């Protein structure tokens, strides 16, 4: 296999037919090229979607309420379930060992907020200090809501970057007063959210203040939690499912909602969502692999065809070789090695070209669901293994045919 003479023979025959060798290689190159691009795109989509998920902490569990649909313990269906501060305290106490950060939520959409003459319609939300972690929000200037704001019912607000740009333009908003439904609040911070503009049009207030000022009594619209970090993704999914299950059961019990009711109390588990999308992604990945491999097969069949022609053309030469003592194995080796060599070199160029294109064009692509297309080392290595196998397959049948050539017939062939 590694004898120098054999390699010399291969280079001799290839250089005799440069154009043919090149065209044969091209079909394999393009196959590998397409596979690499497809896999890169698939990875890009994966990265993009992962980025989308970063807008909220990936390990978030939310509890919402609605109206019941099933009668239970003497209660009629169609009853509105309302979360209250006591629910928050009860759940945080009960599930404290599973919960990392926690926050209640009381808010309203479409509140008119103005600063001097500038005004707009935004959502405001009374939250606990932990909500910053839940939302994955980053403070650009000032600070987020803190415990003493909650305690003192302070009229302070943390505004989204969009709100800041709308109302304050270039001015520093910290320390200024905005009016929310005509109630003045002091701006103490500006945040940005990886979820994009939509999530930056919110104004956060201390929960207690919001409930008191906007007539919320002790009502909550939502409870948000994040679970404690887990070692693996699967473990996190499991923990999140466990927590959401527990939350649903105990809250349904508290509010006398039937265990079969699906809308009275709803628990959203973003990890569950994430897992579903990841599953989808792995199907897309699988699909791309299949498409890519089919392309390679087309290329390899091309190589096989050409090798058949080569064997046909070299029938006489193979006959001569056999007449002077070439054994069938050495003929098979010769053809097989040539096919493997052509596919390997051509495939390597395809791989290199694909990687280069991803490297150059990848970073230019700006899209919500696409980021950093790339192919990792394992994938590159597996394509090379595929190539070697493909080359061997492409060469085998022509080589077998060559080995079957009878020297007497080959030599008669003028």
């Amino acid at each position: 296999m590694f004898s120098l003479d054999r390699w010399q023979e291969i280079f001799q025959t290839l250089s005799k037919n440069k154009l043919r060798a090149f065209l044969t290689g091209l079909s394999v190159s393009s196959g590998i090229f397409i596979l690499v691009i497809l896999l890169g795109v698939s990875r890009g989509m994966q990265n993009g979607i992962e980025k989308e998920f970063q807008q909220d902490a990936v390990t978030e569990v939310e509890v919402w309420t609605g109206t019941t649909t099933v009668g239970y313990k003497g209660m009629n269906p169609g009853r509105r379930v309302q979360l209250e501060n006591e629910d928050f305290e009860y759940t945080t106490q009960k599930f404290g060992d599973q919960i990392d950060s926690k926050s209640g939520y009381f808010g309203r959409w479409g509140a008119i907020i103005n600063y001097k003459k500038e005004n707009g319609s935004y959502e405001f939300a009374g939250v606990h200090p932990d909500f910053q972690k839940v939302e994955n929000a980053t403070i650009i200037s000032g600070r987020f809501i803190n415990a003493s704001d909650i305690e003192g019912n302070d009229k302070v607000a943390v505004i989204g970057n969009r709100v800041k740009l709308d109302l304050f333009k270039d001015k520093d908003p910290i320390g200024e007063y905005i009016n929310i439904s005509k109630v003045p609040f002091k701006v103490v911070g500006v945040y940005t959210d990886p979820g994009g503009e939509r999530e930056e049009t919110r104004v956060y207030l201390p929960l207690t203040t919001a409930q008191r000022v906007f007539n919320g009594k002790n009502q909550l619209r939502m409870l948000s939690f994040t679970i404690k970090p887990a070692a693996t993704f699967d473990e996190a999914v499991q923990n999140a499912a466990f927590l959401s299950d527990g939350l649903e059961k105990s809250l349904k019990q508290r509010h006398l909602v039937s265990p079969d009711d699906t809308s009275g109390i709803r628990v959203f588990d973003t990890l569950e969502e994430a897992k579903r999308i990841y599953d989808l992604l792995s199907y897309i990945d699988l699909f791309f692999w299949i498409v890519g491999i089919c392309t390679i097969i087309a290329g390899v069949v091309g190589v096989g065809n050409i090798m058949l022609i080569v064997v046909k053309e070299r029938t006489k030469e193979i006959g001569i070789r056999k007449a002077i003592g070439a054994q069938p194995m050495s003929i098979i080796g010769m053809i097989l090695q040539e096919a493997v060599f052509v596919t390997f070199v051509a495939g390597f160029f395809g791989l290199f070209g694909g990687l280069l294109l991803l490297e150059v064009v990848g970073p230019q692509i700006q899209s919500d669901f696409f980021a950093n297309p790339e192919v990792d080392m394992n994938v590159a290595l597996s394509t090379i293994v595929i190539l070697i196998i493909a080359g061997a397959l492409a060469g085998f049948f022509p080589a077998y045919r060559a080995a079957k050539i009878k020297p007497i017939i080959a030599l008669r062939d003028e």
Partner: protein
Amino acid sequence: MIEIKDLHKSYKMGSNSLHVLKGINFSVKEGDFVSIMGSSGSGKSTLLNILGILDEADKGEYWLDGVLIKNLNEKVAARYRNKFLGFIFQSFNLINYKTALENVSLPLYYQGVKSKERTEKAMHYLDKVGLASWSHHTPNELSGGQKQRVAIARALASDPKVLLADEPTGALDSKTSYEVMEIIQNINDEGKTIIVVTHEHDIAQMTKRIVHLKDGLVTDDTAVNQIRASAYV
């Protein structure tokens, strides 16, 4: 060296079969120089193919240097061809993209001889046929006579027991033919057994024995007074 007993061979041509060899008995001693003559269709090429282990007889025995050649698989056949036999063809059958030297070293390559030794031996045989200075030319840069001389060198390279030549001068003019025959005679003088298939009488006269074949049977087997090719040149 060669012992043939009651050799039969027929070819299938569609539905009817063609009986080419109908019981050949024939032997060749070491150092002999035999020409096989006959009109086309007499079976002389078939006989040579069987002698060269390129084809197998249907019936009869073929002993080559004390070895019975029968039911060989491809691998063993290739080894015997390499070890026992050297071929010279009418159409030379050199590999076109290889130089004279590479062509001559090919049988040695299949014998597993190391590269350096191979080149040395090949050069030796090329020198023997007077083409040492042409060693790096490809066949299409050589004349017909030169090509045949390269083929002879190749046939000799593996140091075979028997040299088989199928119309070695068939594609050459008479002057070149005699030059080639002179080389073949010299090889025979050194003791190599040679069998030549030819239909040219002057070529046959340069061997030591003529075997006539007609319709698949040996009709005549006579020793001749060898005429030296050098007498013509």
